[in-house]
């Protein structure tokens, strides 16, 4: 992509960052809730590890703590919970304004979402991790490639998550009420992505099912790199898989968008 093409994207990302950074009290409240749930989740997982004799599915106490606090820190970053902003614009018809702009709709929303993710990383991820480090201790990866792979993997996780949310939200072109669909999506993606409990702990059939979906690529993969569950070539392979998911899902989103705009043009909304 040429530099001029990136300028509107950078501006949109900046706007996404600034818009969210005005909600400071919301960030404080969100961090508080993420930490409370993290403490409960980690307690249960540590109980499991203790019953299993110290290590469960390759996780020891330190890596379970790291799993938990990275997962809690990622909640706002990759938007593990409900996101209906785009669907609302479709329902209200405001989407027509976006379509009329001289920028690509999907890329414009992606840029805004990356800006939002940047703010979420600063405001919502650091404190849960710091809390975990002080109260429970964290595992620090000793694999030097992690320094490069973890940031890349986090970025890919946001793009995968965005591509999924984008496609799910576009369902609003066909359905008036998308709340049920979005709720279903949040539940399934959170479970299969490994947010509730690490994918490695799943029974065989559920694990196979999970890896057939893009959801581990938006939650479990970055965590695996940080906790040292995946190192070396396997780590590189996982990140490549994330990138493939990202590209495929963005492509699928464009197809849905094309169908949706055709419907909009033909039926006039």
């Amino acid at each position, binding site marked *: 992509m040429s530099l001029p093409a990136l300028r509107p994207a950078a501006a949109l990302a900046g706007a996404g960052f600034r818009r969210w950074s005005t909600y400071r*009290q*919301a960030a*404080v*409240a*969100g961090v*508080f*809730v993420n930490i*409370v*749930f993290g*403490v*409960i*989740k980690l*307690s*249960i997982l*540590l*109980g*499991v590890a203790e*019953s*299993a004799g110290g290590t*469960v*599915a390759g996780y020891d106490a330190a890596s379970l703590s790291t799993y938990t606090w990275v997962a809690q820190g990622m909640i706002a970053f990759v938007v593990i919970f409900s996101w209906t902003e785009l669907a609302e614009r479709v329902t209200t018809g405001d989407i027509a304004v976006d379509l009329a702009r001289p920028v690509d709709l999907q890329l414009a929303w992606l840029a805004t979402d990356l800006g939002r993710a940047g703010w979420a990383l600063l405001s919502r991820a650091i404190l849960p991790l710091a809390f975990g480090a002080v109260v429970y201790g964290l595992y620090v990866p000793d694999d030097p490639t992690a320094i490069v792979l973890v940031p890349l993997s986090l970025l890919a996780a946001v793009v995968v998550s965005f591509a999924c949310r984008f496609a799910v939200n576009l369902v609003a072109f066909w359905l008036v*009420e998308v*709340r*049920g669909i979005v*709720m*279903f999506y949040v*539940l*399934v993606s*959170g*479970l299969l992505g490994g947010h*509730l*409990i690490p994918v490695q*702990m*799943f*029974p065989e059939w*559920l694990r196979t099912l999970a890896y057939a979906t893009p959801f581990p690529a938006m939650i479990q993969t970055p965590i695996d790199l940080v906790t040292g569950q995946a190192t070396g070539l396997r780590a590189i392979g996982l990140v490549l898989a994330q990138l493939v998911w990202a590209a495929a899902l963005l492509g699928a989103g464009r197809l849905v968008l094309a169908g949706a705009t055709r419907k909009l043009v033909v039926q006039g909304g």
Partner: protein
Amino acid sequence: MADASVATAYRSIVLSRVAAQASYRTSFAIEVVSQAFIVLVEFAEVYVVFHQVDKLGGFSYAEVTLMYGIAVSAFGIADLVVGHLDQLPFYVRRGTFDAFLLRPLSPLGQLVTSDFSLRRVGRVVTGFTVLAVALVAVDIDWTPGRLLLVVVTPLAGAAIFSAVFVATSAIGFWVIEGTEFANAFTYGGNYLSAFPFTVFGTVVRRFFTFLVPVAFVAYLPSLALLGRPDPLGLPGWLSWSAVPVAVVAWIASAAVWRTGLRHYVGAGS
């Protein structure tokens, strides 16, 4: 006589809510099913845990399922009746709460009846199903006392959760992001109450036993049903105390609510 007509007033409000919700049949059906589905996804955590280990915190799969079934049923009932109370900041912002104050009925009573959400009935039904399965699976030495206990426990638990909803919703009188803070205690309490308290650290355990008394919802009554002493040394009679605890919790939460309301009327918006 006056009380009878107050009841009539509330009944009219609740009936109008039910009528309004039932008028969107498809959406209503989807949401009932989604609510039931939430319970199953949450239960996947218990399922996965016991795929890895035979005991969690010293309790078997069936025993934890019993705790889970009681907790979900109790929370489901509370959520059905008062689950929208955490939306208080929204009511305040929209001015609806001021309208409550201008009518000759209790503002709390109006808030409770204003958004009675029948769709949450899905959660209650699934919760009781899980509870029934667990009761068959666990080994209980049935006595009249335990029979009474198993009937009373979900109701007492619902009363305790309702008290938590009322008390924490009052945070909304002080804080715009009160919803999030309240959720840490309501949904957080729901999450934690479904697991054996033996896995939690001392601070968490004491907090959720004596300050936000969700230990009395499922964990302690389950001990009484199973005829087990508390591994952590709480006296046995506490396991039978959910009802008086619910009463105390209600008195305390009413006081917190009144303080919040006084603050709202005093500080204004």
